[in-house]
């Protein structure tokens, strides 16, 4: 049966060292979510966060959260010897709209809610190309989406899913 196809989207294809087979894996990010590609400057460590969050950096006065994709996807444990991101590598910055309520500890603003765009950066090893791909409407909702690219299949990653991973059980 021919899978249902939706309109093609543009993606940036990135590679990341230390894939499941120890080889380079291909990841795709939607270009409409990608704001820019930067070399992360000095990174500030942040206490009490998931180990896959490397910290914060400043991008023209805005705070950007830098995520270690390998750790977020659980690949780091497979290849602990690999650097999380080679120094010359780059990060792809994704814009993500987050909804936020003000800190409940401060009590007063009842139901005060605001939405703002937050920036997330995903550390990758290299950007290998930009191309149009077609998405398949998949039968299993929530399953990570595989897209066909000229370089083979790639996982399509969205900013929202990366910003708020499903909670892993603490040991």
């Amino acid at each position: 049966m021919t899978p249902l196809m939706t309109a093609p989207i543009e993606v940036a294809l990135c590679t990341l060292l230390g894939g499941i087979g120890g080889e380079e894996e291909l990841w795709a990010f939607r270009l409409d979510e990608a704001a820019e590609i930067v070399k992360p400057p000095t990174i500030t460590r942040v206490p009490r966060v998931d180990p896959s969050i490397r910290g914060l950096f400043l991008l023209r006065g805005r705070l950007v959260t830098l995520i270690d994709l390998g750790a977020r996807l659980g690949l780091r444990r497979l290849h602990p010897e690999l650097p999380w991101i080679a120094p010359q590598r780059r990060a792809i910055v994704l814009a993500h709209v987050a909804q936020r309520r003000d800190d409940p500890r401060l009590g007063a603003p009842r139901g005060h809610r605001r939405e703002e765009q937050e920036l997330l950066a995903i550390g990758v090893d290299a950007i290998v190309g930009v191309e149009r791909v077609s998405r398949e409407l998949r039968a299993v909702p929530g399953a990570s989406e595989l897209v066909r690219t000229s370089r083979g299949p790639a996982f399509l990653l969205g900013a929202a899913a990366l910003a708020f991973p499903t909670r892993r059980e603490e040991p």
Partner: protein
Amino acid sequence: MTDRETEAAMSAPGLLLESEFLAEAQEIVDAASRTLLALDEARSRGDASPLLLGDVFRAVHTLKGLAGLFRPGLLGTLAHEYEELLQDLRLGRTPLDGEAMDLLFRGIETFGVLLAAIEAGLPEPEPEVRALLAALARSRNALGRAESDHDGAVKLESWALDPNILAVLTEYEEHRLRLAVASGQRLFRAEVRFALATLDDGIEQLKTRLIDLGEIVTYLPTGDGADLLSIDLEILVVSRAPVDLLAAALEPLGARLEEVRRRDETLPPPAAPAEDAGRDRDRDRDDAAETGETRVLRAGVSPGGDKHLAVADEGREGRSAGERNEQALERVATVRVAIDRIDGLLDVVGELGLLPFAVARLESSLRQNPLTRREAGELSRLRRSLERHIGRIRSGILATRMVPLAQVVDRLTRAVRQIARESEKQVTFVATGAETELDKLLVEELTEPLLHLVRNAVDHGIEAKATRERLQKPVVGTLALNAFQKGNQVVVELEDDGAGMHPEALVARAIGLGLISPEEGRTYGRNEAFSLVFLPGFTTRAEAGPLSGRGVGMDVVKTNIAALGGTVEVESEPDIGSKFTLTLPITLAVLQVLVVVADGTTFCLPLANLEEVFPLDVAAVRRSPVREMGRELAREAGREFGREIQEVLPHRDAPLPLAPLGTLLFDAPEAGDARTPSLRERLRPGFVVVANFPGKRIGIVVDGVDGQQGIVVKALPAALRSARSVLAGATDLGDHRIGLVVDLGAVVDEFVREARPRPSPLALEERL
């Protein structure tokens, strides 16, 4: 903008968005609340003004209309029932007594809760609303109708009024008229001509001029305006004032005034109005003038206007007119702006603030070269000008976030009223300085702490009537709020003339509750004793009352105020009263911090909670067994107390517990890691920053201190929300560095209670 909002904006161009509707609805409720408070106050003087009731009625009517457009359902139903109650009150069907006022105030609270729920996208508090609806219905059935026509005994027909006028009076107007003449007020009729273009202004002026003299029952257009651009109004006024005074008040408007007398007081006019109802009014007036039955005073339009106004209370008159004007101007000159937009602008200014740094670098490289030294000087001048302008933009934007404290004061006034009624005490709440401006977010976050203090003051502070009489104090207690600006800070004082606190009693109580040891208690001075009330778990009540006394609250007040970068102080005299002084930064946006470096990361520590900074002398560090108090607290919290030994530094006659900032914030090293050096080994020569919270004082060890700075705090990205347990935000320090703003209160609390689930590395190291 959410998709839903975008959709709404596109599908209904020109209509309010939901967020705007909510803001407007809240504004209406706030305004109605203020008017109710004024009405309550007037009622307690025995002078319930129908004008105020009318204002509330109109506000709620508008709300009902808005709700019908945007939120059919509970809000609309509630607004409708509330309006019905107001209508009954206006018509005198229901007496305006304490019970009715309670119901009205309860309605205001419920509107607030309902709107907040809608805004937050939470389910509507249906049980609460239904309960109020039921109460509204009950009150109308119980109180209403029975003697609804008690003023009907007065026969309006016996006044020399045109029956045509009587026929068009609304039920409300007729009720007011009956009430007034029944109470012996005199009835006047006036005719006044207004230009159509300024009709609203004219009517407003008319009301203002008569506000202290009498009540306007109705305005009716006579339909015979002199030309197309003006309109004649016939006005019925009831008043106790002498006719000359009324005439003088109306003179500047060119009004023609006459008194309407009872028919039995006067001889029947040659042509009785009843027989010739439809005839020309001018002739009527002429007839009246000829017979001399009614006094006719015709005043010309005087060019001097107000100067001729012969009203006794002229100053008051003038002021209220001015106020009205100001209100009108305010309406025109104000725009409502979402705070997010202002924050967006602040972010841009933050980025802009980086430019001078880049220019300065360019400057210094140009200065190296003798050929470009002059350009460097030029550039330097331009840069300084740029810095100045950026500073002005920043303070301008910050100013737009400022709102008067009055918003909170209204809520507090309602709270005092309610608590006083519930605890059967008499309390007057006096607020001064309500116009003091504070950052919008600060005002919102100040509400809960202030409500708590007010609740405590009425419940614990103000004594019962009998006690006050015995102490020869005024029976009615006073709670005074005073707010004022002091430099870059705002001070809010809350003072009661209640029972006050004994410092010795507080210390004894704290020892009794096991919060401090008897040895510690002996060292407590007066101020330290008062600050005991901020300890978690502290209460002076043996049993929790319905309103307070559960031992939660004051510590939360302290924590909340500290989170805003502010402080709370207590002063008290037994039998004289207590005074709480809150000192807050004017804006949340700029926070004064100490910039420090620990473990290679830059942190900002809010100055408000810091006591002093001094270099660490590693050799002076001692180890000491952990105080019983900490273990007690940990057990209460159901946690294992992980630490047996604590490094301390002898400091000002008391041992100061030490903790490196890096260890406090970052996760503890892997359990069982034998390489973990002992704290003493890890303490590098650095600095000790003393953080002081009530009952908790610790020395935070940092590697370096970079000085003091005013910073703009940004909230942490949502992806880092787990860090919010110890960080209040982050900031761009302006030199390409991020400063993580530490929530000192939370960190110190955690350290003292040792409430982290993982055992502390220090405890492990002692076992090894």
